[in-house]
């Protein structure tokens, strides 16, 4: 399988716990103490209710494909990676996250397909959360 780029990302106080957990192989997400919403993308306040008390927890790393596309023409460093699968995955905890589905055969990907998290590491960049088709 072709490897995908691991582009840089700016670590901020809002997202540092997410990337620290990912570095340890965990998918951690913030949950609002007031309204129970699982907040995506990670931040220090709840966009659903305005609450500012959130607690990080370890998510299952499982979900299902909400939508996807096979990108035939990538830009920049992604040009050589094409074709690759770009997708929104709905985590079992609720959020729909933008990601890649790692697969030898993009034609195997379907909306609704079960997927599981893969943590990919690169040089000089925080790890990136991707998924592969689940069994």
């Amino acid at each position, binding site marked *: 399988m072709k490897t995908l780029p691991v582009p840089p990302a700016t670590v901020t106080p809002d997202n540092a716990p997410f990337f620290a957990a990912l570095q340890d192989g965990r998918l951690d997400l913030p949950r609002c103490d007031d309204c129970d919403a699982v907040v995506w993308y990670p931040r220090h306040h709840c*966009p659903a209710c305005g609450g500012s008390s959130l607690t990080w927890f370890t998510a299952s790393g499982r979900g299902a494909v909400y939508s996807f596309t096979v990108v035939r023409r990538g830009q920049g460093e992604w040009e050589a990676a*094409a074709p690759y699968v770009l997708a929104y995955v709905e985590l079992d905890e609720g959020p729909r996250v933008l990601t890649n589905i790692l697969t030898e055969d993009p034609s195997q990907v379907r909306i609704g397909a079960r997927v599981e998290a893969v943590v990919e590491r690169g040089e000089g960049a925080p790890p990136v959360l991707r998924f592969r088709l689940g069994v």
Partner: protein
Amino acid sequence: MAQIHAEVALGALSDAGLESRDVDAYFCAGDAPGFGPLSMAEYLGLRCRYMDSTEMGGSSYVAHVGHAAAAIAARKCQVALITLAGRPRTGGPPPGTSSAADLAPEGPFELRFGMTIPAAYAMAAARHMHEFGTTSEQLAEVKVAASLHAQHNPHAFLRQAVTVQEVIDSPLVADPLHRLDCCVITDGGGALVVVSPEVARSLPRRKAKVLGHGEAPKHGGDGRLDLTYTGAVWSGPAAFGEAGVTPADIDYASIYDSFTITVLETLEDLGFCAKGEGGRFVSDGSLVAPDGRLPFNTDGGGLCNNHPSNRGGMTKVIEAVRQLRGEAHPAVQLPDCRLALVHGTGGSLATRMGSATLILGQEDA
């Protein structure tokens, strides 16, 4: 780039029968170089008492018309100039790339996966197909209608009429979107002048009247993104409500057409058909002028005519004004276009976007 802003500004003012010294309000968006309205006011030699640089991507200029009308109603200004220009074809970065995006809070969660603009719209199309059974053939009908109009426009970038099969047979860019589902990338610009009723009465040129305006952002909220609808579900009712009309009253529509799916979702969200019925709505020639149920984008739109600065809102307003003035190409001019709708889609469809809707009427409306 600034020069194109100046050329279109002078062209629009001249068309209106005005000069740059008459302008007392200036509107521009993210395509304006330098310090936005400050740089441009100096470059254009404007003495303004009102400025607005609302940036919502390609829909900005549709929103600016509403903002200008509101500012005029509040007696903040009398003659508002709105400009757009860009050279994405012969210079500048590819669509959808900007250094500012890296610093946005969503950046670390969205910029690491090889996202492209067509891919974002492709995922909306894929989900729409999944939920409603929309087909590639139905999406292609949007391009076919635009191409039938563009063949009459000598300035169109793509003037050749195409068939559904030709759209389907064009290469996939991001599944399920083909090359011919995508708008063109062209250089160019456009400008609008919005004036007070008093100034309007003094001008010889036939006018269009702003009857209603609505705008809304749509975003992922708390992470439960839904790709099947757009901000038009809010901007549309606001504009229709202000104008006191309904979708059934609209004679002509300029619908933002960055991609075929953009048009399909927008038609549903504006209430021209029920949610999920967009594919069926566009399939029987509904969008083809002059006889379709809802003729759209009679200049050929972004799909065939132009998409200057990768921002299609400006040209959408301009073609609607042509229809209301009776100055569209005779082959696509509606016999009596009394009410026109303009809809702009900025940002990324259904994902993080700015929607803006205008209802325009003839000057006696």
